[in-house]
């Protein structure tokens, strides 16, 4: 690490913050139904769609109806995506003539994309037809992100409203998320990416004769449109197996910049939307600050760990022991790490390097980012949901310390909210650790390993941390395309997604019913430095207490072995 490496990252984060403030303001207007500069175009479409859907936008829902609509909608998405994969052989846009996807892979993939995880047990260019990639996968990239946005908007309404039963209309929130936020951004990103060399065509693969006379078959497809939304929606599922490391998904440093920017943009803007909707801007900044502190802590460790290089490689005669295994020359170490940190801090899961080949301490931080529940910016919508739930826990702890009933943003927090928060925080951790233990204890689990020793444990831990927290990136050496992994990770993804969203909506419903507590001198302030420090501490302490033993036996142990040159 040199100043030369640090300056672009600092600039990047400044530009990101600025864009996040602007987008947060814009989304505030969108989700409170105000006129924006897009209303002229999107407004009539929105009205037309409501008429088509039979939705009255004034018709508000209770939290139970809101949840029911969301669950039905997602169940439908899973069934359709599953069937699409099984029938792609007879559907159009299939120039490579791919047959039906195996049932367990198809089920895993369907759940994966609907839950915004985008864990991929398959290699895209060898499995999925263009039709499946567009009408199946791209659609869920939009819709799962829109569902996440709807969830966080509903939760924020719970804090705003007083003494009412409703938290908004799911179909309205969903429609606005797509029409005003996701689609316009995706159009811009897709066109810029395509202009830089990300392919966008419906033609079959190109056959070429290389300079040395070998045949090379170059897979292409409608890639730019899919990559744009998989970054913006923090989905992360690539068109190609190598994801954004593939030159047709990210051919230049410019596209790399755009893609890492895109995956952070909406999650970073959401705290500002929260501030805008609550009319408490400082609250938005407090959440943003907590996320940024956690992000920078992780980034510092990963950059340091990777810049050290590998002492084993250095001894073998590699310049500086630089760990370029699984990294692309155009990105180098620093920009591979920035991407890796960003993609695990948000629940994106796209990769521009192979995380399996990173240095052990980098892998440790990535694991931690995911395991704490994807709250450092996190996934579109659900990231802020997770952070609000951590804030509720923080206020509970603060309440215990000062001996009064905890409050947060003007609402009393009572046993019901606490139970829901604990369910949300602990479910994915439990599922991750239990399923990882199962994999380690069974032959079917161990059969997937690509590396032995502590790194093997890291591969398994990573798989379940990623799926139980809906990230989707992988230590991809693990062969997860087996019935055992397809079914267990599918289970982890379902639990991870719905034990965040449903408790959050339940909290929203409960809070909306309550009166607003008048501001008094006795209230613990939640917009100052003290709150930020407490929130960050709670996240780190909960994570460390839950995962420290597992992380010690995996990446930490491997780090010590690499330092003394022990291999497996």
């Amino acid at each position: 690490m040199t100043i030369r490496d640090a300056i672009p990252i600092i600039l990047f984060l400044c530009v990101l913050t600025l864009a996040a403030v602007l987008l947060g303001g814009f989304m505030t207007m969108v989700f409170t139904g105000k006129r924006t500069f897009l209303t002229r175009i999107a407004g009539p479409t929105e009205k037309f769609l409501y008429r088509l859907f039979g939705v009255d936008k004034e018709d508000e829902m209770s939290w139970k109806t809101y949840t029911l609509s969301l669950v039905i909608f997602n169940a439908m998405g899973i069934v359709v995506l599953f069937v699409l994969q099984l029938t792609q052989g007879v559907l159009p846009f299939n120039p490579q003539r791919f047959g039906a996807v195996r049932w367990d892979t198809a089920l895993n993939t369907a759940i994966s994309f609907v839950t915004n995880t985008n864990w991929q047990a398959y290699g895209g260019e060898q499995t999925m037809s263009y039709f499946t990639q567009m009408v199946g996968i791209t659609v869920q990239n939009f819709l799962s992100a829109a569902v996440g946005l709807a969830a966080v908007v509903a939760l924020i309404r719970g804090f705003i409203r007083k003494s009412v039963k409703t938290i908004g209309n799911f179909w309205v929130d969903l429609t606005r998320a797509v029409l005003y936020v996701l689609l316009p951004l995706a159009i811009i990103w897709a066109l810029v990416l395509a202009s830089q060399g990300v392919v966008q065509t419906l033609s079959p693969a190109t056959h070429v004769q290389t300079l040395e006379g070998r045949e090379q078959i170059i897979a292409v497809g409608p890639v730019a449109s899919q990559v744009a939304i998989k970054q913006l929606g923090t989905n992360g599922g690539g068109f190609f197996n190598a994801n954004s490391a593939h030159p047709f998904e990210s051919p230049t440093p410019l596209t790399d910049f755009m893609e890492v920017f895109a995956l952070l943009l909406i999650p970073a803007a959401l705290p500002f939307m929260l501030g805008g909707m609550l009319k408490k801007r400082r609250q938005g900044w407090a959440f943003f600050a907590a996320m940024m502190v956690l992000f920078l802590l992780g980034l510092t460790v990963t950059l340091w760990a990777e810049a050290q290089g590998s002492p084993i490689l250095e001894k073998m005669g590699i310049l500086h022991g630089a760990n370029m295994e699984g990294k692309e020359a155009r990105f180098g170490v620093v920009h591979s790490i920035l991407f890796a940190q960003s993609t695990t801090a948000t629940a994106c899961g796209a990769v521009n390097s192979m995380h399996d080949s990173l240095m052990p301490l980098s892998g440790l931080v990535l694991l931690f980012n995911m395991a704490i529940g994807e709250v450092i910016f996190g996934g579109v919508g659900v990231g802020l949901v997770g952070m609000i739930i951590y804030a509720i826990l923080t206020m509970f702890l603060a309440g215990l310390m000062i001996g009064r009933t905890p409050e947060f943003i003007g609402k009393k927090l009572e046993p019901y909210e606490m139970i829901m928060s604990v369910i949300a925080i602990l479910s994915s951790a439990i599922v991750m650790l239990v399923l990882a233990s199962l994999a380690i204890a069974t032959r079917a689990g161990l059969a997937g390993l690509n590396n032995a020793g502590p790194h093997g444990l890291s591969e398994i831990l990573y798989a379940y941390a990623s799926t139980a927290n809906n990230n989707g990136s992988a230590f991809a050496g693990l062969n997860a395309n087996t019935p055992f992994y397809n079914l267990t990770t599918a289970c982890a993804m379902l639990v991870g997604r719905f034990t965040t969203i449903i408790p959050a909506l339940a909290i929203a419903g409960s809070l909306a019913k309550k009166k607003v507590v008048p501001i008094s001198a006795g209230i613990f302030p939640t917009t100052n430095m003290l709150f930020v420090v407490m929130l960050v501490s709670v996240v780190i302490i909960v994570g460390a207490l839950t995962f420290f033993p597992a992380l010690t036996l995996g990446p930490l142990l491997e780090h010590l072995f690499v330092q003394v040159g022990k291999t497996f």
Partner: protein
Amino acid sequence: MRHATQALFVFVVFSLLCGLVFPLCITAVSQLLFSWRANGSLLSSQKQIVGSELIGQMFKGPRYFHGRPSATDPAYNASGSSGSNFGPSNAKFLQEIKDRIEAVRLANGVPFDTPIPADLVLASASGLDPHISIESALLQVKRIAKERGLSESEVEGLVRRCIEHRFAGIWGQPRVNVLKLNLALDAGKKN
């Protein structure tokens, strides 16, 4: 029941909008405005397509600059991208690297105590990396010059002309596109 029918309507409409209208419009506009890029940035030599500017290809012979090791099966399989996914403490992986380092030293006459640039012996993430670092290109200059009967400064000049820079001077790494460099070598031969 009302929720289910509404869900169905919403799902169908957004599937059409996001799954067909959006990608097909992007395809149409891309094909219209930047069709060469949208179709894979294909390069030709003597009216024959020899590959994509953005997709690395296998170079084994001594007369061409070599790219990075590729972990795809077979190497540089452009319809099956993949990295090796070997971890830093994997013994089999480290043995492979040892062999590669030796092969690079032998082929290019690099003395035993000179370190080798990492990217030349470590596999890329995609298996299709079209670039190598400037150091890795310069390391091969001596061999290429000898094989082609050119002076080392001529070949080095060619490498320097093929350098691609960081975006805006700050983002990414400076690098050399192996296929373009080799095409330039071949073009130079005829003059």
